C-alpha cells in the first residue's frame, strides 16, 4: 500500500471534531489528579462533610445515640480508648460503642460525641459564612466591574442623604420633618425610576454634576473594610450581640467579603471587554442576563477557589472566637470551646487540647490544599506543563 493510500484510508471525515471529545469535568479531573496533596485535601473534605452530617444525626434529637452533653462525673478525664466502668453508670449513660473513643472531659462528657457535634458547627459556620461573603462579594464586585465606570450624580448623593436624614429624624422623634424628607426622597426616587434618560437630562445642570464613579465607591468601601483588623471587629460585634451560632455566621460572613469583591470585579473588568459579551449584546441579550448567564460562569473559578480557602479561615475564626469564650454559647460543643475548656487540664488530660487542635489543623489544611489544587486547575497560567 502506498503512503498516499494509507493516508486516504485512515483519514477522518472532515466533520470529525478537532479537539478530543472530553467534557470540561473530565479534563479538570485529569489535571486535578496530578496534584496528590490536593486530592488528599479533597478526600478529607469529603470525610469531614460526611462526619459532620453523620455527627448531626447521631448527636441531636431527644435521645441521641451519642449524647454530647451527658455528664458522668464519676468517669471524668478518662484518656482515649478507655473502657467505661459499667458498675458506676446507669445503663443509659454507657457510651454507644462500649468505649470512650476519644476519652472524656472534666465533666465526664464523651469527647467523641462532642467532637462530632462540633464538626457540624464548624461545617455550617464555614459554609454559611462563606456563602454570605460570596453573595455580597459577587453582587458588589459584579456591580463595580460591570457598571463601575458610571458616575454617581450629585442628585443621587442628595437623595441618599435625604432618605438617611429622614430616617434619622424619625428615629430621634422629629416625626414631621423626618417624614417630610422621606416623602420627598421617595417621590424623587420614583421620578428617577420612571423618567426617560432625556427627561433626566433636562434637570438643572447643577444637580447633574458627576461626583465619583460607582467603582470608586465600592472599592474604597472594600479598602476601608480591609483596614479594620477583622478579628477585633468581629469580637466587638459579637460582644454587643446576643451569643448565638447564627450571629457568628452572619458576622463572619459580613466581614470577609472583600477578597471576593476584588476577585469578581477584576474578572468582570476583563470579561466585559471580551468579544463574546459584545456578541451577546448584539444578539439583544439584556444586561442582567449578560451578567448572570454569560459573565458569571466565566468568573466563578477564582471565586470558588477563594471560597474554599475562605471556609477554612471561617472555621478558624469560629474556633478562635469560641476559644476566647465569645463564640457559640457553652452547652453546645464546638471545636473551639472544647479546646478552650481543655487547656486548663493540658497536663492532666492533654487529649482534651490535642484532639480538637489537631482536628482543626487537619480540616483547615485540607481545605487550603483543596483550594490551592482547584486554583491550579482553574487557572491555566499556574499549570505545570
Amino acid at each position, binding site marked *: 500500500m502506498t503512503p498516499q493510500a494509507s493516508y486516504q484510508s485512515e483519514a477522518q*471525515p*472532515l*466533520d470529525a*471534531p*478537532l*479537539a478530543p*471529545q472530553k467534557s*470540561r469535568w473530565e479534563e479538570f479531573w485529569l489535571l486535578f489528579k496530578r496534584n496528590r496533596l490536593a486530592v488528599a485535601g479533597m478526600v478529607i473534605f469529603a470525610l469531614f462533610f460526611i462526619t459532620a452530617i453523620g455527627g448531626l444525626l447521631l448527636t441531636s434529637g431527644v435521645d441521641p445515640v451519642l449524647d454530647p452533653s451527658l455528664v458522668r462525673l464519676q468517669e471524668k478525664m478518662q484518656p482515649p480508648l478507655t473502657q467505661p466502668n459499667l458498675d458506676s453508670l446507669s445503663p443509659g449513660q454507657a457510651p454507644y460503642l462500649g468505649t470512650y473513643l476519644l476519652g472524656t472531659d472534666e465533666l465526664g462528657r464523651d469527647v467523641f460525641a462532642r467532637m462530632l457535634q462540633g464538626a457540624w458547627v464548624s461545617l455550617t459556620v464555614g459554609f454559611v459564612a462563606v456563602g454570605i461573603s460570596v453573595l455580597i462579594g459577587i453582587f458588589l464586585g459584579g456591580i463595580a466591574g460591570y457598571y463601575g*465606570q458610571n458616575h454617581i450624580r450629585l442628585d443621587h448623593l442628595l437623595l441618599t442623604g435625604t432618605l438617611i436624614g429622614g430616617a434619622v429624624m424619625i428615629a430621634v422623634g422629629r416625626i414631621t420633618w423626618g417624614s417630610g424628607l422621606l416623602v420627598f426622597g421617595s417621590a424623587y426616587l420614583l421620578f428617577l425610576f420612571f423618567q*426617560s*434618560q*432625556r427627561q433626566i437630562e433636562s434637570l438643572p445642570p447643577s444637580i447633574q454634576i458627576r461626583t465619583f464613579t460607582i467603582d470608586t465607591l465600592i472599592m474604597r468601601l472594600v479598602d476601608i473594610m480591609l483596614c479594620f483588623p477583622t478579628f477585633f471587629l468581629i469580637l466587638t460585634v459579637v460582644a454587643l450581640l446576643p451569643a448565638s451560632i447564627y450571629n457568628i455566621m452572619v458576622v463572619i460572613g459580613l466581614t470577609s467579603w472583600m477578597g471576593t469583591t476584588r476577585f469578581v470585579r477584576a474578572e468582570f473588568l476583563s470579561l466585559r471587554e*471580551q*468579544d*463574546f459579551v*459584545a*456578541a*451577546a*449584546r*448584539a*444578539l*439583544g*441579550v*439584556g444586561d442582567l*442576563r449578560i451578567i448572570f*448567564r*454569560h459573565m458569571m*460562569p*466565566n468568573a466563578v473559578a477564582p471565586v470558588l477557589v477563594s471560597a474554599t480557602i475562605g471556609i477554612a479561615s471561617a472555621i478558624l475564626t469560629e474556633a478562635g472566637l469560641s476559644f476566647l469564650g465569645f463564640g457559640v454559647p457553652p452547652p453546645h460543643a464546638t471545636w473551639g470551646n472544647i479546646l478552650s475548656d481543655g487547656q486548663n487540664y493540658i497536663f492532666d488530660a492533654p487529649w482534651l487540647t490535642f484532639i480538637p487542635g489537631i482536628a482543626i489543623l487537619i480540616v483547615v489544611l485540607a481545605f487550603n490544599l483543596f483550594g490551592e489544587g482547584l486554583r491550579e486547575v482553574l487557572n491555566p497560567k499556574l499549570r505545570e506543563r
Partner: protein
Amino acid sequence: MNKNILLSVDDLKVYFRGADGRASKAVDGVSYDIRREETVCLVGESGCGKTVSALSILGLIPQPPGEIVGGRILFDGRDLLPLTDEEMQRIRGNRVAMVFQEPLTSLNPVFKIGDQIAESIRIHRKIDADAQRQRCIQLLEDVGIASAEERLNAYPHQLSGGQRQRVMIAMALSCNPELVIADEPTTALDVTVQAQILKLFKVLQQKHNMAVLYITHDLGVVSAVADRVYVMYAGIIVEQGQTAQIFREPQHPYTRGLLSSLPTRSKRGQRLYSIAGSVPDPAHKPVGCPFHPRCPHAVQTCRERFPKMCDYGKGHLARCPVLYTNRNETA
C-alpha cells in the same frame, strides 16, 4: 422615501472623549444606504471608523467615552438613535444581527454552542424547547456544519476556527434578521476557509433575503461579495459606487492608492506601491481634506476647504473636487 432602502445612515457623527477632554472624531459625518437584499461593503484602513459606525447602528457604542454627536440612523424608516435600551434590545439580534471578527473569542467558552444559538431565539421568539432545538439543527445545517445534531452539544473549544465562525453566523441568522452586519468575519481565518465563508454568505443571503453590511479592509473580499462599496478614510466616506465602478475607475486618490497597492500579476517583481505617510490621529485631524497630507494631487484648496462629494453619475461619488475639475477640463 424610497421603500427599498432598509438602512439609511445619515450624517452620523460619533466622537470619543479622551481623558484630556479632547474629542476623537472616530466617525465624522458618514452617510450610507443599504437596500433590501443587497451587500454593501465598507472598506478602509484600521481605525478609520468602519467598526464604530457599524456598532452605532446597534447602539453598542460604550457611552461614555463614546458619544453620538449627530446624525440619524433610519432602519426601515424608523430612527434608531432615540430608542430606549429595551426597544433597542428588541431590534438587536432580531431584525439586525452582527457577526464579529474573532470567532475564537466571540463564543462564550462555558456554554454548549446549541445553547448559545438558542439564546437569541429564546429571547426574541416565543417557541418551545423542542422547536428551538429543531431550529438550531436547521441553522447549523444551513451554515454547513455536518452532523449538526451532535454538534449542538459541543463546546466552542472543540470546534475549529472556521466552524466557530459558521456557528457565529448561525447565531446571527437565528431570528431571520433583515440586516446582518459582518465586521471583518474572515480576517481571523485562513484563505481557504475565508473563501468558504464568503460563499456561505452569498448562499445564505439569497436563501434568507437579507441585506449584508460587510466591513473589511480586504479589497479581495470586497470584489468577491459587494454590490456596492463605500470607501472610508479617517471617519468620512471618500468614495462610493458600484463595485465595478470603484475597481475599474477609482476616482479618489485614496481609493486609487489602495488599488494600486494590491499585488497583481502584471506588477510581478516590482516594488509594491504604498501610500506615503499614515492615517491621521482622529483627535488631530488635518484641516481641509483629511487625506491631503498623503495625497499626490493635493493643492492649496485641499488644505483649506473640506471637500464636497462630486458626482460621476450612476451613483458613483468621490470626495475629491480637484480630480473632478481636472477630469472635466481635460475632457
